[in-house]
C-alpha cells in the first residue's frame, strides 16, 4: 500500500497535504483498497466550519457508507468537482485526482496531532 512520506495521516484513514495555510484532504490507499468500488461521494459545502473527529463527508462503496472526518480545524474552501461524475477516482488515484476537499487551517498546530507516514504504516500493519 502506498503511504507517501510528505503527507500527514489521521487514525481514521484520511491524509492531509499542506500548502501554505490550506490542507488538501483525501482517504488513504489502504482505505480505498479496503472499501473498493466507490460509487458515490457526498462532500461538505464550501464555507462549512470543520473540526477534527467531526463527520463531514461520506464515501459510499457498493456495499457500505463510510463517514469521513476532517483531520484539522478550519473552513472548507473547495471540494473536488470531478468526484460527482467519477467517484472511482478515489480508488484509482487516492492521493491525486481522488482528493476530497480543501480546508483552510485555523491552527497549524493541529498537524502535530496527526501521524507521519511511518506511524501510519505501523497502524495499518505494513
Amino acid at each position, binding site marked *: 500500500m502506498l503511504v507517501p512520506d510528505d503527507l500527514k495521516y489521521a487514525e*481514521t*484513514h*484520511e491524509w492531509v497535504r499542506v500548502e501554505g495555510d490550506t490542507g488538501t484532504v483525501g*482517504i488513504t490507499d489502504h*482505505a480505498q483498497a*479496503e*472499501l*473498493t*468500488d466507490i*460509487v*458515490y461521494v*457526498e462532500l461538505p459545502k464550501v464555507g462549512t466550519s470543520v473540526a477534527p473527529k467531526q*463527520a463531514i463527508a*461520506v*464515501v*459510499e*462503496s*457498493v*456495499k*457500505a*457508507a*463510510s*463517514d*469521513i*472526518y476532517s483531520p484539522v480545524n478550519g473552513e472548507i474552501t473547495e471540494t473536488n468537482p470531478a468526484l*460527482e461524475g467519477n467517484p472511482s477516482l478515489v480508488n484509482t488515484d487516492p492521493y491525486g485526482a481522488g482528493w476530497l476537499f480543501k480546508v483552510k487551517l485555523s491552527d497549524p498546530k493541529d498537524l502535530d496531532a496527526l501521524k507521519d507516514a511511518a506511524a501510519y504504516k505501523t497502524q*495499518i*500493519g505494513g
Partner: protein
Amino acid sequence: MNTDTLSAFIRGVLAYGRSIVSEAPSPPLKQTPLLEEHLKLGAKMVSFGGWNMPVFYSSILDEHQAVRNNVGVFDISHMGEFEVSGPLASSWLNSLLTNNIEKLAIGEGQYTFLLNDAGGVIDDLIVYRRAETSFFMVVNAAKVEENFRWMQRRIASDVSLVNRSAQYAALAVQGPKSADLMSHFGELPSHNHLVELRFEEVPLFVARTGYTGEDGCEIFYPVTAAARVWNQVLELGKSLGIRPCGLGARDTLRMEVCYPLNGSDLSADRTPLEAGLGFFVDLAKPDFVGRDALLLQKQEGLKQRLVPIKTSGKTPPPRAHYGVFVDGLQIGELTSGTQSPSLNTGIGLAYLDLAYTKPGQIVEFDVRGRKFPATVEKKPLYKKPC
C-alpha cells in the same frame, strides 16, 4: 473514516486483521472448509450469519461482471443441508412447507418456505426429491439450528430428519459459461433438478439452481474433498475467465433479479404474501404451518408488499433501513439496496404501503436527512439482453 456506519453485512471489512468493530460479544465465527483457499486468493473476509466468509477477492464489480458475462464460483459451504426420509417423509414435509411437495418428480427441486404459526418466514429453502421417499433440503446458514429444532419438535413417526450441514461442502458455479465448465463432471440436470455426478471418487450432488439470475449449478459434496473440487472448478474455468466470487457480488447479483435475502427482505414478521412470493405457497393444500394466518391475511388484504425500486439520476445507493416517502409521508422502508453494477443505478427492495406498490410509482428515499427520487419497478430489475 468511521466503520460504525458500515452496514451489518460488511461490518468488519475495515477492521479485518486489526481491531474488531465493537459489538455485543458473539461466539467465535464458523469457518468453511475452504478458508485456507480464500486466504491464499487474497479474499477480504467478513462475518455473515455467524460465519467468516469472503466478501470479495478482487472487487465486487469485477466479480459481478464475471458472473454476468462468463462464470464465477462461490463458496456456499456455510449453507445447511438436511436429509429427510421414510415412508411418510413427503406428507410430513408437506405439512411444514408452503409449496406442494407432491408435485416433485424424482430429481426435481422447488423453492419453498418454512413458516411460523403467524405465517412469518422462518426460512426460505430449496427441497429436492432424491428418491420417492427421500428428500434433500438446502437451508440458510444462519437458520440451520433454528430450522432443525423447529422441524425436530414436529417430527412424525416413520420420518428420519438428519442435519448433514457439517458433512457437506458446497459451491455455486454461476454464469453463462457455467454449463461449459460443469459438463466436465458429467451430464448436467435440467433447471431446478438434481443429479449425482462424480469427480474421481468424490460423489457430487449437482443441482441446476442458483441465486444470481444466470444459468448455474450448485454442488454439494463431502467436506473431505472441499479444496480439491474448488480448485478443480477454478482450473476448468481458467480458459472461460472464471473468478472466485464473494458475498458482495452474491448480494448485488441477487438484488438485480429481486431474489430475497432471509434476515433482510424476509423475516419472522413478514409473510411470503407480503414478500410477493405467493407463487411458492400452495393454499389449496389441506394444511401446513402458517396456512390459517395466510388465509386470514389474504381475506383481510395486505397492508404492505415488497417491491423493487430503481433510483433516478445521480443518487447515493439505496440501503437497508432507509425510509421511503411520498409527499413527505413515510410509506415504507428499504430492506435491501445497492448500486447495481449491471444497470449502473441504485436499486433496492422495499416494503411499501399497498397503494404505492404499482410499477411507475414515484417515491423518495431518505439518505442522512436528504431525499432522493426513485421509481417502483417490476421484477426482475435486471433481465438478460436477448
